[in-house]
């Protein structure tokens, strides 16, 4: 028995509604990555905890919604995190946030950056990005997912992912310029 291969996510998902052990094994397998993405999308550990729980419980409510032909369970869970995060930000399904809304790049914000820890600066800078750009950046930059998978999760073309990433990076560079100048002076 010891030499048996690990069961697939699909096999565990089939069992999850009837076996708590199977459900918890699935949770153990994906909890960190789901929590991490939820945290980065919401900037809140409490919200990330709620979202992570909802994503896994969602597997029980609608196991039929997951189609292995469209991607792995991890991809499906990323999609679920994204939907919950959008609701957290007050967006309903299908709503779009304004991609090109001007962000606050005032001197006060920049000055505040100079007085903060690097990690907090980045966190704050990313939180000023429109949600669509933030989603793309977090999945690609932090979770190191291939562009194709990011496209599936966000439900857009690969080209659109690239464009969101470019805009996000350009905007971050702009926002962070005073920080770079400040750290060079120091």
């Amino acid at each position, binding site marked *: 028995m010891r030499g048996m291969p690990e069961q697939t996510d699909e096999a565990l998902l089939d069992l999850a509604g009837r076996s708590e052990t199977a459900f918890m094994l699935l949770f153990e397998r994906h909890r960190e990555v789901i929590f991490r993405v939820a945290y980065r999308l919401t900037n809140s550990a409490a919200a990330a905890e709620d979202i992570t729980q909802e994503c896994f419980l969602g597997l029980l409510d609608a196991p039929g919604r997951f189609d292995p032909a469209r991607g792995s369970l991890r991809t499906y869970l990323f999609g679920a995190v994204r939907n919950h995060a959008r609701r957290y930000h007050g967006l309903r399904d299908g709503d779009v946030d304004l991609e090109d809304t001007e962000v606050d790049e005032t001197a006060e914000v920049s000055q505040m950056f100079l007085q903060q820890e690097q990690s907090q600066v980045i966190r704050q800078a990313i939180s000023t990005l429109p949600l669509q750009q933030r989603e793309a950046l977090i999945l690609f930059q932090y979770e190191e997912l291939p562009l194709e998978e990011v496209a599936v999760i966000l439900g857009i073309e690969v080209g659109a992912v690239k464009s969101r990433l470019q805009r996000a990076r350009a905007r971050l560079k702009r926002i*962070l310029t005073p920080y770079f100048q400040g750290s060079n002076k120091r």
Partner: protein
Amino acid sequence: MNPSDEDLNCLLKAWTAPRSPDSLEGRLRRAYGDRVRSRTTVLSGEAGQQRKWSSGVWTRWIAQFAPTAGKVAAVMAGAVVLLAVITRAFPQSLNLVVPTGAIILDSEFLDYKNDGSYAVSEYRTSSFRRATVERDIIEGGETVLASSFPGDLLRTAAGDVLNPMRASLEPIAHSMIDPLFYKPGRAEYLRALAMTVTERIRKGCTPSNMWGRPMTVIGEETVLNYTTTVSQFAPEGGNFRFTEWFAPELDCFSLRSTTEKALPDGAFQLANERRVLKVTKNSSTTKAKEQNR
């Protein structure tokens, strides 16, 4: 000066996310339990209307068989009495219910007093069925073959009658009832179930839980030459803690379990304990009753 792509990548790396809190697991387990319970309630609600109609039909249907049902009940009662007499008169018949390859365990149950002394409250011989794909057995099933309660003749006598009956009837009941569940996809269900059990064994009997709450692994110990994972459940603000010694080699059956009560000074004192004294892994049957005398 605008930062370069490399500068930006370096800076982005500085933002690290925290690990998910340990409490999340307990929270999810509770939510899982609630969800499963609420589903059952919803199903009962939906079925309620139908049941109102169908209960009358069933009552009428049963009523017409009433005389026959009485006879069937009488025959069953007779069979139970006969089985009890046989197992009393021929204790070795008990061996028939121990399946080949089962693990037979001899255990004692101890009750501790405040001064640390203890008394044996029960000796038990039981068979432990290993996880199989043929039946719905999760995390091992224990069948009591024989038990004796020192100083309690009545309870011992009752056990003499009831244990073999239950041990004989249980497999029959299982073989009749189990196939009624999860009819569609049953083969896949059983296969996946066996794999789940296997993965838990492979992970050294983790995760383990008690009353739907996660147990914490506190160490590893050798009991009767078996390596065991020691897991503990101590409810927050509770007045006791429960510890089990799970043996991966025995499909995570526990070779020892203790309940300790909390003292006012925060220390814990043993309240009761189950200790497995002997593990028989071969297929030879055990004269359980004789061993317990």
